[in-house]
């Protein structure tokens, strides 16, 4: 590197650039946090939905599934499972979901197995509420199609 470009200049770019972009990031974060309630329909975030998220976490669902594309890639995406398996009908989805949760594991030899989590009826309902709420978040039109 040319001698004209000194260590002091490099240091200033580091401190100046790092600080500037971090502050910009904080400012954008403030804006994002302000508009998120609208994009995720926070008024629909009921106690049941919040409880559903706790059940999702407590059973490490994200260890196999992805949710809005994040998580593990061993089992289907669940951000749009309400559309895929419930045809956007809450009654249909809840009936499907409850039956499905109780039927696990399938025990089909050689196939991927989902553990039996022994959830109570209320817990299954709340987990379904959480997935329904999640499916309505404005995700900039992701996923590209119903298969997730």
């Amino acid at each position, binding site marked *: *590197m040319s001698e004209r*470009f000194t*260590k002091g200049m*490099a*240091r200033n*770019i*580091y401190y100046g650039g*790092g600080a500037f*972009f*971090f502050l*910009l*990031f904080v400012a*954008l*974060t403030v*804006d*994002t*946090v302000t508009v*998120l309630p609208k*994009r*995720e329909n926070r008024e629909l*975030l009921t106690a049941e*939905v919040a409880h559903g*998220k*706790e059940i*999702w*976490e*407590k*059973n*490490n*669902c*994200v*260890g*196999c599934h992805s949710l*809005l594309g*994040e*998580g*593990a*890639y*061993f*089992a*289907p995406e669940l951000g749009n499972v309400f559309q895929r398996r419930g045809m956007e009908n809450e009654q249909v989805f809840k009936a499907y979901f409850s039956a499905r949760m109780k039927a696990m*594991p399938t*025990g089909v*030899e*050689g*196939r*991927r*197995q989902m*553990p039996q989590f022994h959830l109570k009826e209320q817990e299954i309902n709340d987990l379904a509420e959480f997935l329904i709420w*999640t499916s309505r*978040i*404005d*995700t*900039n039109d*992701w*996923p*590209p*199609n119903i*298969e*997730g």
Partner: protein
Amino acid sequence: MKYQSQAVAKPYFAFAMLLFVGQIVFGLILGTQYIIGDFLFPEIPFNVARMVHTNLLIVWLLCGFMGATYYLVPEETQCELYSPKLAWILFWAYAIAGTLTIVGYLSVPYATLAEITYNNILPTMGREFLEQPTITKIGIVIVALGFLFNVGMTILRGRKTVINMVLITGLLGLAVFFLFSFYNPASLTLDKYFWWWVVHLWVEGVWELILGSILAFILIKTTGVDREVVEKWLYLIIAMALISGILGTGHHYFFIGAPEYWLWIGSVFSAVEPLPFFMMMVFAFSMIKQRRREHPNKAAVAWAAGCTIMAFLGAGVWGFLHTLAPVNYYTHGSQITAAHGHLAFFGAYVMIVLAIISYAWPQLQGRLSNSLQAQKVEIASIWVMCVSMLMITLLLTAAGIIQVMQQRMPADGIALGYMATQDLIVPIYWTRLVAGIAFGGGVMLYLYSFVVASRTQADAPALPVSA
């Protein structure tokens, strides 16, 4: 080694390598479960094996960072560590907490683990990579505080070089951003948004500071190039890392509910993220070319140089491949992400930790380097690990392309379902498992180099008496 207290790095390095082996074992289990779905079910379900695989990685890399710090800070500050005793106490606290956590994952269902560790008081569990019980997270914070205190006091007493200042800034950032793991709001989008403040601001932010300073240290020691030159490079590299990486976080905000402007910000800034990795590569190779001494530890130089190439490929090239929003729209959450994750973590962080271990371990044993025979085995192991990790990456990329083409791009009704697509990919998963076993072979070869090193101690160059 020049300072007695550097010896506390030893248990950290040894424990890191032990956990590395464990991580690979669980990686092979996961690779098998992708093919034989019910392999080890219900004893070790996929989610448990994955949690063990990724958490062991994080725990052993942090362990390696701490060992590296304890090794290089006394040399940089030119004084003994503030408290070697504290470093030993923290080692045992960290090792015991880490081991108990992994044992917990493997011995009881996750929901039970959440209950017996009182997760309900402050729920933080069940989020990717942050699966540790809250009590373990608190333990990590305590260890980090003790560690930063110990290192900070040492630096305050001694010489303040750019390397140790950048290193401590990186470590401080690591500790500060980890605090966001305690924030778990009911809103999924808020949760995800700040979850990335831990995950992204770690690996594409402050960890790059740690990586840069360890790399700079190894290069100064092995090439004898003037410190001024190295420090200028280091500042420039980490400047670019932060300038691109901070707003680059936006590439995770495309499809999780955050506003549309992140599509642009995330795409533009993360497109620049390969630059610091490219600079690291140019830096390493130009320092090696300008070297003023021939250090006998060729293996350490090979790790360091290899690290910059593999990090550029994994973090830079494979990151760029899917970081632009229109591309990521189809690849988000596919095996492309897994391909990038594997090569980036291996290239950038696994290799830098193994590089510093390779440089430091012989010196901690009183040798300037290992014997030529031992280095030959070690360098062979670098090649085996790098080539097989590249194979894993290429195969996972192929798997991801199939997912995109079969499951993501076709319209509703024509697109294949998730499991139908997985069935199509099985032959690729088999080949990936073979590459994974080859990687495991590379790890065994690496460990064998330690056996050769201890058998051929007599042939190894001794440390200069003045040291």
